[in-house]
């Protein structure tokens, strides 16, 4: 799949309280304000909880337009810009994107806008409430960079990694340290399929949070990655964390030449290999499961099929599906950035609502394709006592491939 590119050059120019808002940016804000039909509002999982329309793409754009018209100051708005999950549902649902983005070659880019406002605000000397938690998380990842060779392969201890880096597993620090089961099981599934691969060991700080703080630093890490991919001869990059995948697909091509490198999400890659080799997982897992589309796959890159199709390969497993179009309205509550660290209470309610919706489908297990969704759902489930266990799609597939793995899912376990 060729890469996505949706770049507005005038985003590079920082906004500052010290100067009037640039006319290009006024038009940008107006484009969403002018719709006024606010399709971006009721689709927003955050708005669904807070019911405050300021916390929507309409609200973000309108507040900037108001400032440009002499109503309020730019630095007064920042609190508003913390209420964004960066899930991308609003920008996809915006008629400017969904109905005419291709025709006019211009679309709504709310996620970029939110990140820009945050970093411009901080560059302007402003502060964001609770940002210290985000900073701590990023600092932790910056710290990992110093020792990365060790950390990003530690998860693979005991697993035979026999290939070169033509096919490279891209495992970031979050997955390598907190969502270890995903790369561990994925690697074993690939071994069973006889696929040769290597592990890419220098991912740098990949967290999308960094784009809200310092895009130059983010670009530094990303640039190093691209240079390394080329140096190491990476042809296929198999990505474990859809947060990385969305960045590789959406952000990298804005700044770097990704020609010759195919970026594939892990479920897609395994599915492709199973089909190529004519392999069906040998062990049946009889059961009905809910499936949660991560925003990073669904709304941000509109690739909702491969996790579903992969589950479809497992004999006996059936998804009680909520179509991807409906799931534009859902988020696990973690978001695709610092949201959960800024608004723990709302994140919890979003997660509760989502898990409750899964429980209403009459299942005991919700399959996810993102380690952050799993992390969030695990927390929410424990706290709220909801009878739905989050399980990564890869865990289900590994089990069906005969790889021993303990899970707490009543159906899979």
């Amino acid at each position: 799949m060729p890469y996505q590119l949706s770049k507005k050059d005038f985003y590079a120019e920082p906004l500052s309280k010290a100067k009037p808002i640039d006319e290009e940016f006024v038009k940008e804000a107006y484009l969403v304000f002018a719709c006024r039909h606010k399709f971006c509002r009721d689709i927003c999982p955050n708005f669904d909880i807070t019911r405050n329309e300021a916390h929507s793409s309409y609200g973000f754009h309108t507040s900037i337009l108001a400032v440009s018209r002499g109503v309020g100051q730019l630095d007064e708005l920042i609190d508003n810009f913390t209420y964004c999950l960066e899930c991308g549902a609003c920008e996809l649902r915006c008629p400017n994107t969904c109905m005419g983005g291709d025709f006019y070659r211009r679309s709504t880019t709310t996620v970029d806008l939110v990140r820009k406002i945050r970093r411009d605000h901080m560059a302007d000397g402003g502060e964001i409430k609770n940002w210290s938690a985000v900073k701590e998380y990023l600092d932790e990842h910056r710290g990992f960079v110093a020792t990365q060779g060790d950390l990003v392969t530690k998860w693979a201890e005991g697993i035979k990694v026999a290939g070169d880096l033509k096919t490279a597993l891209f495992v970031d620090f979050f997955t390598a340290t907190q969502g270890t089961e995903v790369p561990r099981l994925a690697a074993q599934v690939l071994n069973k399929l006889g696929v040769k691969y290597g592990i890419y060991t220098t991912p740098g700080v990949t967290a999308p949070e960094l784009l809200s703080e310092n895009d130059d630093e983010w670009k530094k890490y990303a640039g190093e990655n691209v240079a390394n991919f080329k140096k190491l001869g990476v042809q296929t990059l198999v990505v474990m964390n859809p947060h990385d995948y969305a960045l590789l697909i959406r952000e990298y091509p804005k700044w770097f030449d990704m020609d010759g490198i195919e970026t594939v999400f892990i479920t897609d890659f395994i599915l492709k290999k199973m089909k190529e080799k004519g392999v069906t997982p040998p062990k049946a897992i009889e059961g009905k499961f809910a499936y949660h589309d991560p925003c990073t796959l669904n709304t941000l890159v509109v690739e909702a099929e491969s996790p579903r199709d992969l589950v479809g390969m497992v004999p006996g497993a059936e998804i009680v599906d909520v179509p991807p179009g409906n799931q534009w309205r859902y988020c696990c509550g973690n978001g695709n950035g610092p949201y959960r660290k800024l608004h723990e209470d709302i994140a919890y309610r979003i997660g509760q609502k989502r898990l409750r919706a899964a429980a209403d489908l009459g299942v005991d297990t919700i399959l996810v394709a993102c380690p952050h969704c799993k992390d969030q759902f695990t927390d929410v489930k424990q706290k709220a006592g909801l009878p739905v266990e989050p399980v990564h799609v890869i865990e289900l597939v590994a089990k069906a491939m005969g790889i021993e793995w303990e899970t707490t899912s009543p159906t899979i376990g």
Partner: protein
Amino acid sequence: MTAATSTYGAVTDEVVAELKRLLGDENVLTDMHERAMRAFSCAPAPLHRWKDQTPDVVVLPGSTEDVVGVLKLANERRIPVTPRAGASGLADGAMPLRKGICVDIKRMNEIFEIDEDNMCATVGTGINMLKLNEVLEPLGKIYPDDLAGYANAMLGGRIGCGGWTLIGGKFGHIPDTVISMECVLPDGQVIWVGGGGTKKIRKSSSGYRLKDLFMQHQGTLCIATKAVIELYPKSEVEFAGYFAFDNWDDAYAALYDVTTRGFGNLSSAMIFDDKKIDFLRRDDEAFIPLPKEVKFVDLFTMYGLKCEVEPAVREGFRIMKKHGGRYLGPEQGEGDWASRHDRYHLSYHGRTPDGQATLMSWHCEDTAAYHTALPILREQYHEIVGRYMTEYPGVFDDWGIFIYTSNPFKGWGDYLIEIDVGIAELQYNDETWDAWIRMKREIAEAAVAQECSVSICHGSCREGDDDVAMHKEMKNGTFDIMKKIKRMIDPNNIMNPGKYCLDEAYDD
């Protein structure tokens, strides 16, 4: 000094503190951006006067009791109150012309009861129709309020403007699909109005029919907090047929025939006129190509049981073909009809006289017209807008005319005719805003001259429209009674003051 001209009470720190005591700190918003955001609703607005209509405080009540508390306080202190639901109305109902308190009811979105036995549901008025229908889906039920803002409008606003729906020809409009509702009056009294004094009875012969009084008042009488609404079985099938015509006369005759034929499943029928087709050709071809020879288009839609709709569709084809209509194919029908809520809001639709894409906001001037007035109004509306386009090049743009069935449960008689005007809203100044008001007034006057009503769906409480509606259309005593009712229910004129010319109710 009259109530209309005397000074309103200020939203002081003490008032804010009291509101916070009533609703909780987090539900009383005083930040500038929270208030600025609620200065406008959906229609092109005087952006150059943003500050003049920014509310002083925004409250987010979560229950009827919260609304009672806020209204009692506002009434006591004589502070203007503007209710706000989805704020997607095109008649500026949610615009706080006198500032004061914006009562944003979006938190009141609970579904209290789904009563399948009696085919109705009780809901909070902050609920959005699409969300409601997602909940009803597994039951095979639907609440058929299908407006352009289906994905975002909220029931409270629909009640406030007495909304109209795209498929009302079969399912009825808001006054038909809202069975009863709970309203909080300015003094804090809570009443429930419906068929007689009941909640779930649709048709009663008990007492005055007050439901209609508390509908379409644009927030000038009360705030609706709960409602009982109709449920319909979700339709087995839908069909939308688009037919091309070479000229107005044939398209108009075909519309008459299809709407008077007596179909039970006809949900809507409409004409896109030639200017509208030209407008759509600018860019909606991005997904629905229209052949060049197409001048006018008629559409009919049918919903219901397959066994009913299938033969009805055949008959519809026969009528359209009889008048020279050429079927445009299922892609047109499916694509266009499914995108009916979305496709018109792109502000890139605007064009400068030299063909450059510019940013314009969509505005509809809608009229309730009877069948024989349609050709006259169509010509007059284009003439009026054309004149202003010439005078203010690049500021206004004629985006064509839609004609639409609007009689509930039957296709004939009443129609909606709307001319859509693109407006370079970002470039508004006092002069162009004034020109816009004059243009609206001319359109409204043309409608009233034909014994038609100024608005069928959006409402007639906008600057420019309202005086024509109140003083000309309603000159035969209706406005006098409105003023008496307004003064009786809202003696301090706190409810959405400035709308419907109702300040005049307080001229002693």
